[in-house]
């Protein structure tokens, strides 16, 4: 087992953002994560990467309890993440954004930059890239440490249908091979395309788990996304 979440609970003041969540992920597995906004997906990602403290439960990665580990240590252990709103160092070049600091600058990341088609822009300031290019930069940045697990938080947010397709293809080509992925998305086709297994979250709890079509057809999915009719 690559990743195990046992009874993870996260509270903010009086609000329980994630409630008693269990999750198991095998190496190389691609897991989809769905649920309406506010259901706890981002908080869960924050907890796994160490940005937010769990009030209860454990996070075990490759047999090591990483629940209380500092974020930089978790990153070095092999967990990477992308953000819903693109996050990068806008005043630094593409190359400086991608290369991790404990590695010499040039060389090694050429392949990665080529894979995301940004090699020709390596000396451009990240702030000057288009949104779609910035999303590709995020992926390169996240992959720079060769993580065995990558958490992707709505990687196609803000992209039009054509760009979404291209991004999904990029993820399939570059991200998925050789590593485990937890993909949080709202767009059904992307999930259906990439994830054999999906977890549906509702108000911090795991509401349902199964293949995409099963999830889409469920009443929990409908009521979560569209609201309960009378």
């Amino acid at each position: 087992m690559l990743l195990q979440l046992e009874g993870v609970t996260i509270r903010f003041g009086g609000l329980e953002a994630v409630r008693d969540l269990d999750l198991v992920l095998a190496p190389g597995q691609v897991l989809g994560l769905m649920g309406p906004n506010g259901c706890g997906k981002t908080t869960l990602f924050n907890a796994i990467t160490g940005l937010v403290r769990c009030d209860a439960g454990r996070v075990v990665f490759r047999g090591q309890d990483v629940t209380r580990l500092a974020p930089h240590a978790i990153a070095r252990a092999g967990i990477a993440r992308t953000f819903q709103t693109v996050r990068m160092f806008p005043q630094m070049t593409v190359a400086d954004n991608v290369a991790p600091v404990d590695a010499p600058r040039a060389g090694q990341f050429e392949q990665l930059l080529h894979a995301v088609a940004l090699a020709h822009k390596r000396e451009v300031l990240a702030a000057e890239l288009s949104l779609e290019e910035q999303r590709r930069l995020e992926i390169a940045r996240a992959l720079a440490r060769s993580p065995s697990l990558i958490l992707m938080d709505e990687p196609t947010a803000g992209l039009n249908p054509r760009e979404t397709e291209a991004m999904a293809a990029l993820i399939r080509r570059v991200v998925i091979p050789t590593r485990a992925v937890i993909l949080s998305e709202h767009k059904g086709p992307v999930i259906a395309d990439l994830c054999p297994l999906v977890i549906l979250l509702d108000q911090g709890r795991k509401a349902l788990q199964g293949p995409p079509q099963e999830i889409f057809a469920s009443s929990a999915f409908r009521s979560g996304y569209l609201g309960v009719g009378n």
Partner: protein
Amino acid sequence: MTKLAIDLVQNTLDGVMVGSSYALLALGFTLIFGTMRRLNLAYGPTIMAGAYLGTYAFLHLGFGAFPVAVLVLIGAALAGLYVERLCFRPFAQTAAMASMVSSFAVWMQIEEAASLALPRHLNAFPALVSGSLQLGPFFVRLDHLLMLAVAASATLLVHWALYRTRFGLGIRTVIDHRHAAALVGVPVTRILLLAFVLASTVGGLAGFLIAASEAQITPMFGMWATTKGLIAMMLGGLGSVPGALVGGLALGIIEAQAQWLLGPHLRDLVAWGLLFAVLALWPGGLMGAAGVDEAAAVQRRV
């Protein structure tokens, strides 16, 4: 009552009086911080601008205490407008540092302008009332009592404005979530401007009361007011209106006791030390941060 007890209570009384003016200073500061989310380093100097305007009128035009008070309020409000226009409005939400440095630049401008207008270091300022009241073994200066009364009324007035008027509602929504407020049609720019002017006017009132009780004013007043307002605000909790009150009174009382016990130098050391301790141990201030800011919580883990 023992001498010690009498002294302690007297100090507390004095502290509360002085603390009420600190509370007013903190109130203005906190209104600006709550809405702008940035520190206005020119806050004290804008109050001083008003105070100097009043002093000028007093010294060169023979105005009495009440017209001077009005002038002080107007001067502070106008100076506040200038600061808002130049240092806060032109900057995007993210350029917080630029705003603060800009306000510092204006601080320097106002300080220099004040020294040019009234070159003498010490300037007389109209006093309000003199004499003191004796309550048993305790003495209370009448002008301090007036200061307390005016500060209390002003705080109640601001509270009423914030919680019982549409304008106040607007301010509170902007404090809570500026973007959302804009989306529901709150005239954010206008609200920010008015909040700034309100804050400066409240500060101006504090300035008038303090200068009147000292019956003098110097160019150091600007920095002094910023410092006291800042410490009081941080003690009570950044951006918290009740916190401004608590912080101001607490600062006043602690200063009074420290001065009695240790003398004026150590009094200032205690004030700063207290602020530092509060920041290091309880960054949210004595009142604590009410809501929880997830981003800030995340930031703090790093």
